[in-house]
C-alpha cells in the first residue's frame, strides 16, 4: 500500500496538508460568522484537492488529477458559491443560536481529535503501520468526522448544518485519498455529483423553511416530539 513506503518528502507533504485541513476544520468550529465558515470550507476543499493531486503525483495514479480538478471546482468553488448565495439572500451573517460557545466547542473538538488519535493509533498498530502517514490520515479522517457531528449538534442555523454535513464528507474524501488512492474513479466522481444534488436539495429546503416557518433556525423546529 502507498502509505507504507513513501519517500520522506511525500510523507511530509501529505501530513502537512492533512494537518492544515484539520486546522481549517477548527477554524470553522470556532467561527461565529457564516462567511468565515464558508471561506474556511472552501480553503479546506482546495487543500484536499492539492492533496489528491500530490497523491496522484507521488503514487502514480493519474486519475487522481481529475479528481483534484473536480474537487477544487465543485467543492472549492461551486458549493461555497451556492451556499454564499443563500447566505446573502437570507441575510444571516452570523450564528445567533448556539448551544456551545465557540471557545468551548474548540475544547470539545480537541478532545475529539485525541479520541480519534487513540483509535487510529490502535488500528495502525494492529496493521503494522504505526508511525506512517496512514495513521495521521486516519486520525484526521475520524476527527473531521467527529468535528462535523459536533457542528451539526451545537449549531442551529440551517446553513451551518449544511456546512457541517459537507465537513463530514470532506473528512472521508481526505482520508480516502491517502488510504485508498486506488478506489475506483467512478465512485468518487459520483460522490461529487451526489453532493451537488444534496446542496440543490438543501437550497430548496432552506427556502421552504424561510417561507413557512419564518426563520432558518432549526430551533424553531420543535413541533414534532414524542
Amino acid at each position, binding site marked *: *500500500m*502507498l502509505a507504507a513506503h513513501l519517500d520522506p518528502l511525500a510523507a511530509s507533504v501529505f501530513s502537512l496538508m492533512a494537518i492544515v485541513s484539520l486546522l481549517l476544520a477548527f477554524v470553522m468550529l470556532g467561527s461565529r460568522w457564516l462567511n468565515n465558515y464558508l471561506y474556511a470550507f472552501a480553503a479546506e476543499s482546495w487543500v484536499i484537492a492539492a492533496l489528491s493531486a500530490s497523491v496522484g503525483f507521488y503514487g502514480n495514479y493519474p486519475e487522481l488529477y481529475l479528481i483534484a480538478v473536480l474537487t477544487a471546482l465543485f467543492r472549492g468553488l461551486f458549493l461555497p458559491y451556492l451556499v454564499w448565495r443563500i447566505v446573502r439572500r437570507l441575510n444571516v451573517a452570523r450564528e445567533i443560536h448556539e448551544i456551545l460557545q465557540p471557545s468551548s466547542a474548540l475544547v470539545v473538538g480537541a478532545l475529539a481529535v485525541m479520541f480519534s488519535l487513540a*483509535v487510529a493509533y*490502535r*488500528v495502525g498498530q*494492529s*496493521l503494522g503501520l504505526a508511525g506512517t502517514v496512514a495513521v495521521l490520515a486516519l486520525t484526521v*479522517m475520524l476527527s473531521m*468526522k467527529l468535528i*462535523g*457531528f459536533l457542528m*451539526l449538534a451545537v449549531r442551529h442555523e*440551517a446553513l451551518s*448544518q449544511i456546512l*457541517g*454535513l459537507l465537513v*463530514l*464528507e470532506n*473528512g*472521508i474524501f481526505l*482520508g*480516502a485519498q491517502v*488510504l*485508498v*488512492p*486506488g*478506489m*475506483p474513479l*467512478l*465512485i468518487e466522481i*459520483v*460522490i461529487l455529483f*451526489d453532493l451537488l*444534488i*444534496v446542496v440543490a*436539495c*438543501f437550497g*430548496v*429546503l432552506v427556502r*421552504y*423553511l424561510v417561507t*413557512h*416557518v419564518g426563520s432558518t433556525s*432549526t430551533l424553531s*423546529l420543535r*413541533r*414534532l416530539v*414524542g
Partner: protein
Amino acid sequence: MIGALLLIMMLAPALAAAVSLIVRRPRVVEKINLLSSIAVFALAVPLTVWSGRGPYRFLNDYVVLDLLGAWVILCTAVVYLLASIYAVGYMRLLEEDGRLWGFYALFSGFALTILLSAVMNNAGLYWIAIELTTLVSTFLVGFEREPESIEAAWKYIILISAGISLALLGTVLFYWNGSLVLGPSYDMTWDILRGAAPKMNGALAILSFLLVLIGYGTKVGLAPMHAWLPDAHSESPAPISAMLSGALLNGAMLGIVRYLSISDAAQIGIFTRTTLVAFGVISLLVGALFIVRQDGIKRLMAYSSVEHMGVVALGFGFGGPLGIAGALYHMLNHSLNKSLMFFGAGNVMRAFGSKRISDIRGVWTRQPVHGALWLAGAAAITGAPPFGLFLSEIVILRAGFEHGFEWAVYAMLALLIVIFIGFLNHFRGMYFGRETPTAESVADARHFALSGWCVAPMWLALAPLLVFGVWWPTDMWNHFMAVANALASAAP
C-alpha cells in the same frame, strides 16, 4: 432473459416518472404510475422465483440479482403496488391536483431507487443508491408543505445524510482493509469483499462494520438512530408512509445483512452479532415505550415500524437458517401489514380531520367494514395469530434460543407483550371509547364514505397476511434456506 426482465422492471418506473414530468395531467399520471407498479410487481414475482438459479450478474458485475436482493425487490414491489392503488384514492382527497404530476414523478422515482439499491453489487454503488432514495423521498416527505411536513423533511435529510456518511466511512475503511489483501485497486463487489474477508485485519474490520451498521442502521430506523423516522412517517402522505416503512427500511436492512455476512467471514467473533441484537432489543424497547403513550395515529404506526425493524434485526442478528428465514418472512409480512395500517390511518385521519388518537372515536359504528379491516390489521401487527407476523416472530424466537441469545429472546417476548397491550389499547379507545368534541363535530356521514381505491389495497394486503399466517409456502421456505446457505457459504 433474466437481464431483460430486470431491465424492464427498472425501466417501468423510470418511464412512469418521465411521462409524469411531461404529461402533467393528474388523472393520467396516477394511472401511469399504477400501470408501472403493476408491471414491477408482475416482473418481481418471476424474478424472485428464478433468482434461485442465479446469482445473475450484469454490466461488468456492477448489477447482481441474487436471492436476497430478489426478496427485497419482491417486498418493494408489493408495497409499491399497494401504495399506488391507494395513492389514486388518497391523493385526490388532498386537493393538490396541480402538483400531483410532481408527486407521482417522485413516487415512481422513489420506487426505482429502492429497486436499484437491491440489485447493486458494488458496495460503493449501493451507498449511492441509498443516498438517492433519501434525495428523492425528502421531497415526498415535505410534499404537503405544512410547517410540520417541512420540519420532518429537514430532520429526515439532515439525520439520514449524517448517518449515511458514517456508512460511507465504513465502506472506505472496508475497501482499505480489502486493499491490504487484494492490492490497491479492485472491484468492491460483495463476493470479492467476502472472499477477502478471512485475511482482513480484525480490529479494522470491527471498526468498519460498526460504522456501516450505525450508518445504514440510521436509515433502517434502529433505535437510538431512529429520531427521523416517526416524524417522516407521520408527516408524509399516507402512501409515502407505507413506502418508507414497508420498502425503504428493508432496502437499507439489505446492506446491513450483506456486511454482516462479510464480517462473519472475517471471523471477528460474535461481537458484531451481539451489537446487532442489542440494537434490535433497544429498538423494541424504544418502540414499546413510545407506543404505550402515543397520541399521534401515524406516529403510533411509525414507532411500530421501529419495533418491527428491531425484530428483523434480531432475526438476522441471531442468524442461522431459522433466524434468516424468520427475518425474511417478517420483512414481507411487515411490508404487507404496515401498508394496511398506514392506509387505514390515512383513511381515518381524513375522515375525522385529526391526527390525534384522542380525537378519533367511534370508528366501529361509523365505518364498520373499513373499521373491521383495520382492526384485523392491528391484531396482525401486534403479532397475534393467525396472521403472518405471528409465525415469523415465533421462528425468530426459536432461532434466538438456538444460538444462545436467551436474554434477547426474553426481552423480546416481554416487550412484544407490552406492545400488544399498548397498541391494542389505542384501538380500544378509537373503536369503543367515549366520544370527544372533535369526533362529534365531524359526525357527518359523507366524511366517512371511502372510495374503493382507499379500501381495496387493504383487502389485498390482509388476504395474503392471513394466508401466510396459516400456511408457510414451501417454495418460500426453500428460498429462505437458499439465502441462508448463500450468506453462510462464504464463512469457511
